Every structure is written in C-alpha cells, then in structure tokens.
C-alpha cells in the first residue's frame, strides 16, 4: 500500500546559525519561503507532488540563502492541538528531549526566538 499521496507533509530543517529546528512556510506564490520555529506555521503539502515542490523550494533556499541545513520532508497529521509528526523520531525532534521537558520546543512558546 502506498499512502504517500494522501499524507500531509512539511519541510523540516536545521537553522544554520544555531542548529534550531525550523519549518518551511512558503509564500502563496510558492516561489519564496521563510523558515519558522513553530511547526504550526509550516506550509502543509497535501499530496506528494506538492510535497516535492515544497522540498525543492526548501533545498533551493538552503543552497542559495544559507539559512538552513539538511531540509527534508516529514509526514504530519492534524490534531486538535495542531500539527503533529507521524513518526516518533520527528515528534521528538519537534518537541525536544523526552527526558528534559524543560528543553527544546516543548519548553517554549511556539513563537520562541
């Protein structure tokens, strides 16, 4: 079975300057994007074609603007409290160490600086 086409995806990366985890938020025209610290501000690609386009935008931005490193796609699901990565590795990546709830994104407001 291939669920790839019906899964929501976002582009995740590490911010070059400090290594913080960021997400790609594309402009409505799809030609430019910004990197956000909050998963809920990420652009969600609802199918694989649009996910690939989003990834291409992220990779180009990584290459040309030197703001992020290693962008890639992750699957997310929509929950009452916002977007949530499907795979536990990415959930940990988006929250912070499970053994230190005082650290990482889980410890700060979505609008962290």
């Amino acid at each position, binding site marked *: 079975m291939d669920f790839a086409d019906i899964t929501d995806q976002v582009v995740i990366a590490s911010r070059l300057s400090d290594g913080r985890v960021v997400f790609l938020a594309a402009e409505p025209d799809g030609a430019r994007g910004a990197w956000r610290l909050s998963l809920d501000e990420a652009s969600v690609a609802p199918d694989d074609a649009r996910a690939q386009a989003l990834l291409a935008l992220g990779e180009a931005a990584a290459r040309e603007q030197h703001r992020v490193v290693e962008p890639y796609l992750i699957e997310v699901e929509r929950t009452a409290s916002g977007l949530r990565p499907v795979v536990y590795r990415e959930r*940990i*990546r988006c929250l912070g160490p499970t053994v230190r709830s005082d650290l990482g994104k889980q410890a700060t407001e979505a609008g962290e600086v």
Partner: protein
Amino acid sequence: MYRYDEYDRALVQDRVAQFRRQVARRLSGELTEEQFRPLRLMNGLYLQLHAYMLRVAIPYGTLDARQLRKLAFIARRYDKGYGHFTTRQNIQYNWPKLEETPDILAELAEVEMHAIQTSGNCIRNVTSDQYAGAAAGEIEDPRIWCEIIRQWSTLHPEFSFLPRKFKIAVTGAEHDRAAVKVHDIGLVMRRDDAGQAGFEVIVGGGLGRTPFIGKTIRAFLPKEDLLSYLEAILRIYNQLGRRDNKFKARIKVTLHETGAEEFTRLVEEEWAQIKDSSLKLPKHEVDRIARYFEPPAFRALSKDAPATEARMARDRDFAAWVRHNVADHKIAGYAIANVSLKPIGKPPGDASAEQMDVVADLADDFSFGEIRVTHSQNLVLPHVERDRLPELYDRLASADLGAANVGLLSDIIACPGLDYCSLANARSIPIAERITERFADRERLELIGDLQIKISGCINACGHHHVGHIGILGVDRKGEEHYQIQIGGSASENAALGKILGRGFSAAEVVDVVEKIVETYLAHRNEGETFIETYGRIGQEPFKERVYGAA
C-alpha cells in the same frame, strides 16, 4: 598533569583562529554545507536532532579543577546549563550555536583544551584507566604513554585520512577499567621476565555493528618501541583497510579479513624497517613527559581512618557509598573516590554546571585539584585522604552527587539515544531511568552486586551494549521503538561479547525483562557468585526460559 608547551599552545590557538574564519565563511554563504561539514567535524561540531553538538576532548580522562570550572562556565554561558560525559571520557554539549562555537573553542584554549581528534577518520583522543597514577598494583602511570601517543598522533600527516576512525586505549593496571580489548588498539602494561615494563599490544577490538574482541598481536613490546610499533600497525591498516564500505573500514575488519597471523607478520615486517628510526623514544624525552605526571605531594598518613570508620558504623548511607564508590589507593591513608553521575531516574553521565563547579571545588579541597572522567560516565577524585571521606561525601550528597552505586546495576552506561542523536533508532536514556527507578532500593542493589547494564540507541553501539552483562540495543521496528536484549558481555580483562537472548521487546516491556533476568541470576547463583560468573556456569537457557517461558 601535562601542561601545554609552546608548540601545543600555538597549534590550538591557530586552529581556533582558522575555524573562526571557516565559520564566518559558512555563515556568509561562501562555503556550502558539503564543504563546511568536514571542517566543523574536525573541530568536534556535529549537527544533531535538536541542535549542534560540540564534543570536547578530555585526553585520557584527566582534568584539573580550573578546566572543569571552564567546562561549567561554557555549559552556563553557551549551552543550557549542563554537559554530558561520554564513554570516550569526553564531554558533549547538546545546544551550542554554530556562530558561538569559535568563542567556545577560544575559551577552551585558555585552559589548554580543544575539540581536536574528537571526530573524523583520524587517531582519536586516547583513553585510559581513570585510576591512573592512583591505583594500587599499577605497573606505571599509563597517562605518560597516553600523552606520548597524543603528541605523536595529533595532526599526524600520514594518519589524518585513515579508512575510518581509530581509537587507542592504554592501561597500566592488571584489572582493565578502560575496556582496552574493544578498542582499535589496546595497550596493557606488562613486565617481561627481566622485570622491564612494556606493553601487550591488542589489535582489532571494536563494537558497532560488527563487534570483535581484540587479538594480542604482540605479548610484550619494549616501551621505547611504542611509537614505531603503533606507526607500523597504522601503516598496515592505512594500506589494507577498506575504503569501499564504511561499515567494513575499521581495523577490526581488516584484521579479520587479513587474518591475525598475516596481519601480525605484515606489522612486524614494517616495524623491522622503522623500529630504529627517529620514532625510537629517547629516555630523556620519556622522562620529560613523565615529570608532568609526577605524583602530587602526598602526606605521610596512617592507614587507619578513625573518622571514616566511625561514620561508617553509624551511617548506612555513607557506609554504602564507601563500599561502592571508594577504591583503594596505592598510598597508605589515601583513597580513590568515585563521583556517580547516575542518580536514580536521571540521564546517565549528565552533570549540571553547578555540579561541575562543586566537583572542581572538591578537587581543590580534597584531591590536589585533579579530576578524572571514566568511560562508564562517572567522575573520580583520585587522591583523597581516607579519613576526610565523610566531609567529602556530605558535600557531594548536598549537590545530588552522592549516589552510592558505582559498579552496581544502576550505574548504567547509556548513549544519548533518540532524545538527542540523529543516528539513533530508539531512546536509551528513558530506559536507563526506568531501570534505575525499578532498582532504586539499595539493599536489593547490593544483594545483586556487580551487574553492568549498557544501553545503545542504535547499532553503532556508543552505549557499549555488546559488552554489558546485560546489553540493551534500541532498534526501530515498524515505526516503534523496540529493544533487543543480550546477556553475558563483559568489558573487563575477561572481555566477552554478549549473546542475543531472543526476540526483542517494546519499551514498555524492557524493564520487566531486565528484572526477570536479575531474578533468574539470584535464583541460580552460588554463594559469592557475580552475575557474569553465574551466567558463565549456567549459560543462557535458564534466562531464556524465565524471560520467554518454557519452549
């Protein structure tokens, strides 16, 4: 302790300046990530799950108080108030910023520290016995030889691009606390028939996805030939080591594929050509290095310690701490005090900046300013007056550093696992925390005795699970964390690889399984038998039956 000479100082400062320029060029976009990655790795800077990670070298696990205070300062100023001590006797910071890393390295250089040889396919930071210079029965302080190896290996032009990383461990004691048999080269100090000190040379040990116990390729090597022999081994490895497959590139595979006999022949042949070269260590140079490791000014003390004895008689917590955390010192009236970084329910090996400052102060007040880092992720104050142990214990305990569990079941080695590491498949730390919570009762811990649990979050085996009496390996199974259990491994002088018990378990099941294994041991053991001895006698079957039920 060894102090930098002008050469070392210039080298480290040049490296900081160079990296500062490289970081600036990366941030400006002049360098791509592909170009920059090897440069940052050469300076110990990795990119992990949540942030960068900086690995700082602590050569042969020896620190002074001033250096430990600097590590605390860096944790506070540049990181999130803590550091993680590793199985390589190093410290890792989990949250440094790339843009601040040159400043961190400059701070480190002020106290003669750096991140060189903590990454890349070079000869890595040499590790050693944490009791070096303090252990009773030691042939020589192995750090003299570690430092000689460090000077030879740092930026060695011929060995800067090896097939894969290369780890050397040295011990001067009979009892192996440095896991030398699972290193690329393990050196054990020995005496020959004439009473001369030298080395047994063990090659090709290693963990990871293809674990091997090292093989002795030379039973006795005279000391002055150490560097020429190491160079011969490295040359043969550099020529034969595979570069086609990263997973088959370590010397353990070279040795295995070439055959120990043939490999040894090649090394000896190479060595015959270079043994009388400039690599032959002149005595005056060895003596010069040895002077850096001269013992501190020990006082003449009675071997009696009345205050410690009296406190032990009335304070069970203290008595337990002395039993498990204190080891015999070679000098009468002195003791080696282990500082456990394994409090119940906390990440193994983590220390807060405040705790580092406390240990630095205690080192100054009790241990001639010296601290050691152990490969089992604890700290050591190597030279403490035995009768001052009560005072030391009280100050440790008030900083949450008084756990009396060194060598016991809750003294768990665990890699950072999926809580931090981008290579991991599963979490390690929460498993360690839950096991220590389950086995929190001291009487039960003492009843169980010497039982080492080691946990890795992936097959790279940073948590040494292959050589745990009980080894736990985290894997990903269909998108869930899953854990394989193996038993019977050992990292001691009787090094052995554990054997997988059977099918793996979910995170929820693991602690129960560990408990069943422990219960099986307790049910079967003879008087005075340790876990590994009972296992050696009864084998895996009884454990399997208990864990999986009768077949």
